[in-house]
């Protein structure tokens, strides 16, 4: 059982955290023909946009209500209205997802009231879904904003089904924000192999997977359609991935009666065994041969890899769901979690196999990473890893100094197998070669050595 502590520093140094605001914006990017709109000053949008461009290496649809000082004092109705009208005429979206910022929250703009007024005075916008979500950047973190946006889309769009749903092969999947476009592709293959027909909300695999569209599109290049979201009530069950999605899954269940099951992670042998057993039982399809082979390959990779993982000390910093997923899996591979730092609270944190989980920043991680064999966090860990002289494995968002961030796969037997290869290779590349001086005894330090020799 980990002790969860909150950092007491007054100054955050090298932030780990990102805002709810852009977490929600990213969720809206998993919907086809969508345009997220941040209600705040233009910098809020510009910073988020650049961050996603650097991570995904894709054009990012993201707009701003461009609040000026005067508009901030007087209230943002005109800006919201004008922004929606401009976006509608310039980019012809199906959905505009409006996320608040600290600026609009403090002013107290009543966004849902605004939208009602805009709806009544602009009947020509009737075909566009307008969804507001409250995402102040002075509380919560990225994954909260993502989950909030998904919940709001369910509340506003999903229709209450008229017919009994039990016979359908349709399933809903609610992936957390730590599930990459590449992960979604992998999961789709898995579900389809069980003759299931998944709707992913959001579906970044259609929009931010990196592909070449036929024509220029100012909105998202793909994703789940509004029509598909409406029909989510006709699925036989919902699979939520990550504790962050529990609220959205419950909302969907209350609204439509579609029951949900939650997997808090899909990395590692045991988690995927559970997934396979569940899918086979629910679909009535025996586990296809290819997954039996993949499982066997994963077991073999664990055998080959455990020499390199065993006893290694790893410092991990990530959002709660990603942290829990990585820390549990590394622990299952024989690593010792030397430090765990995260952004916000979650019921998962206490279960993490480490003494303390700290809500903190990357300076905290750096201070706790001395002597570690590996650091696991997003690209902003690069300065700390360099100073400490330890390798960095990049996970989460943003990863701006490596290619293929959107295609990093960590789910399934295959994803777990490849993760062993990637991290194992980092360990191998950073092995310390012995020298004639390595084993010269230093008498008197036996007690220190005993502490180092024993596993923690």
């Amino acid at each position, binding site marked *: 059982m980990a002790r969860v502590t909150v950092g007491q520093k*007054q*100054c955050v140094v090298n*932030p780990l955290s*990102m805002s709810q605001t*852009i977490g929600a914006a990213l969720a809206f990017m998993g919907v086809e023909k969508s345009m997220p709109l941040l209600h705040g000053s233009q*910098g809020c949008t510009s910073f988020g946009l*650049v961050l996603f*461009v650097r991570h995904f290496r894709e054009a990012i649809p993201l707009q701003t209500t461009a609040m000026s000082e005067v508009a901030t004092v007087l209230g943002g109705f005109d800006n919201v209205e004008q922004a929606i009208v401009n976006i509608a005429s310039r980019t012809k979206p199906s959905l505009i997802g409006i996320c608040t910022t600290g600026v609009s929250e403090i002013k107290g703009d009543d966004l849902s009231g605004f939208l009602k007024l805009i709806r009544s005075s602009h009947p020509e916008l009737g075909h566009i879904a307008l969804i507001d979500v409250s995402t*102040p*950047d002075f509380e919560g973190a990225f994954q909260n904003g993502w989950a909030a946006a998904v919940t709001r889309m369910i509340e506003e769009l999903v229709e209450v089904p008229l017919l009994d749903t039990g016979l359908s092969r349709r399933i809903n999947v609610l992936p957390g924000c730590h599930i990459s476009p590449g992960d979604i592709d992998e999961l789709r293959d898995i579900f389809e192999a069980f003759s299931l027909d998944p709707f992913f909300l959001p579906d970044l695999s259609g929009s931010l997977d990196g592909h070449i569209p036929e024509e220029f599109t100012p909105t998202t290049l793909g994703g789940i359609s509004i029509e598909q979201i409406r029909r989510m009530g006709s699925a036989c069950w919902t699979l939520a991935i990550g504790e962050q999605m529990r609220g959205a899954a419950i909302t969907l269940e209350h609204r439509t009666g579609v029951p949900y099951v939650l997997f808090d992670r899909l990395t590692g042998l045991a988690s995927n065994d559970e997934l396979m057993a569940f899918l086979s039982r629910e679909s009535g399809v025996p586990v296809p041969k290819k997954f039996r082979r993949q499982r066997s390959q994963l077991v073999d990779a664990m055998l080959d890899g455990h020499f390199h993982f065993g006893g290694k000390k790893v410092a991990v910093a990530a959002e709660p769901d990603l942290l829990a997923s990585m820390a549990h899996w590394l622990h299952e591979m024989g690593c010792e979690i030397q430090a765990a730092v995260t952004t916000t609270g979650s019921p998962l944190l206490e279960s993490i196999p480490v003494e303390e989980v700290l809500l903190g920043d990357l300076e905290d991680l750096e201070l706790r990473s001395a002597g570690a064999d590996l650091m696991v966090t997003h690209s902003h860990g690069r300065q700390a890893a360099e100073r400490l002289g330890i390798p960095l494995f990049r996970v989460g968002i943003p990863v701006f100094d490596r290619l293929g961030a959107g295609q990093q796969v960590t789910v399934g037997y295959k994803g777990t197998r490849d993760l062993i290869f990637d991290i194992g290779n980092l360990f191998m590349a950073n092995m310390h070669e012995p020298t004639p001086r390595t084993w010269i005894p230093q008498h008197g330090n036996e007690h220190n050595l005993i502490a180092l020799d024993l596993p923690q």
Partner: protein
Amino acid sequence: MSTLSAKVQSVLDEPACATNQAKPDSERKKGCNKLLAPGAAAGGCAFDGAKIALQPITDVAHLVHGPINCEGHSWDGRGSKSSGPLLYRISFTTAMTEQDIIFGGEKHLYKAIKEVVEKYNPPAVFVYQTCVPAMIGDDIEAVCKAAAANLDKPVIPVNVPGFSGSKNLGNKLAGETLLDYVIGTEEPAETTPYDINIIGEYNLSGELWQVKPLLDELGIRILASISGDSKYHEVARSHRARAAMMVCSKAMINVARKMEERYGIPFFEGSFYGIGDTSDALRRISQLLVDRGAPAELLSRTEVVIAREEARAWLRIGPFKTRLAGKRVLLFTGGVKSWSVVAALQEAGLVIIGTSTKKSTPDDKERIKELVKDDAHMFDDLKPREMYKMLKDARADIMLSGGRTQFVALKAKMPWLDINQERHHAYAGYEGMVALVREIDKALSNPIWDQIRRPAPWDVAAVRDQLQIHIA
């Protein structure tokens, strides 16, 4: 807030800005702070602009007072390089919470400054004001004053809430901050008749270092670069320079002008982009120094260096001519002067078929017209969709632009080169122009273009038939 709005008003009505002075009285006061169209705006806020202008000061702590949207998404993203201190790459923010909003963030900010000073002991702390604390009335000037007195350390308030205006305005407000709190607060140990300031150069990708060796050779000392690769004390002592060059268009024109007024430092506006421009800049630096009393032989030494470097650059660009002749370029340079790059591209045989003039002055437009004759199109505001169409229809061979339009070109399967502030290559001075031509050649001659433009097998009729036969 009234002091901020007065400040904003004063920097917008800039007497040394030719663009602004050319406007009618009624518009002049509005300056270049365009009214932003909600839902159709692109670009950074005033805080962003201030951070771009000041973060290149490498040895100070840059502390952002605001919630996480401001600093959390933007740190370690700017390409300004340092020859020594690395403190500027460490991110500091109060990451305000609901608690701060309710009770006010001033005490939190004070404690944060104290923590930074105790832990990192920088020569100064720059504190950036953002929208949220401005809305709840946090008085950062007062907090900085108290912190400076108690901690015995310059603590500089940079009052730039994002909603006060654009990135460009933020540049200027950053300059005002330096004028009000930093420049002239210390004295240099020694001065020489060869001391200059370079204002508005941020050493992105190390561009200052493409020019500095030539100044070193001429015996010209950069007393302060404001602010690329500079240190706090250098900026504080910059008022003793003999002359100044203002780079990067109009971003810090207020600093150059006020330093001339206050300290009698003459300045000129120049550019290190382009061969001719670099030569002009070196010439004018030397001339200003000689006017201020440096020995006149500096002029002839400068001409020797210019002649040698120009010949060397043209010699190196020459071989690219046959490879690049007739290739058509779309040039969207944003802040960088279009015309100064155009000459070098033409020398390498490239044809400019279109360029943006969105941020150019009427004067710039005239010069572009002269250079590119009638075959070029000048665009004030080309929409991404039209840009995409031009590239898709192969009316251009390559696009040079900023990151914002990168994917417009790449998704049309057309070569693209980053010439904006996030770029990874340095394009300043003589070295830089050779590098630019080399990068264009690398982009155009890459073997991927032929491969990726080939149709997929299932889109080729003959192959399709064959496949069917095979299947049958």
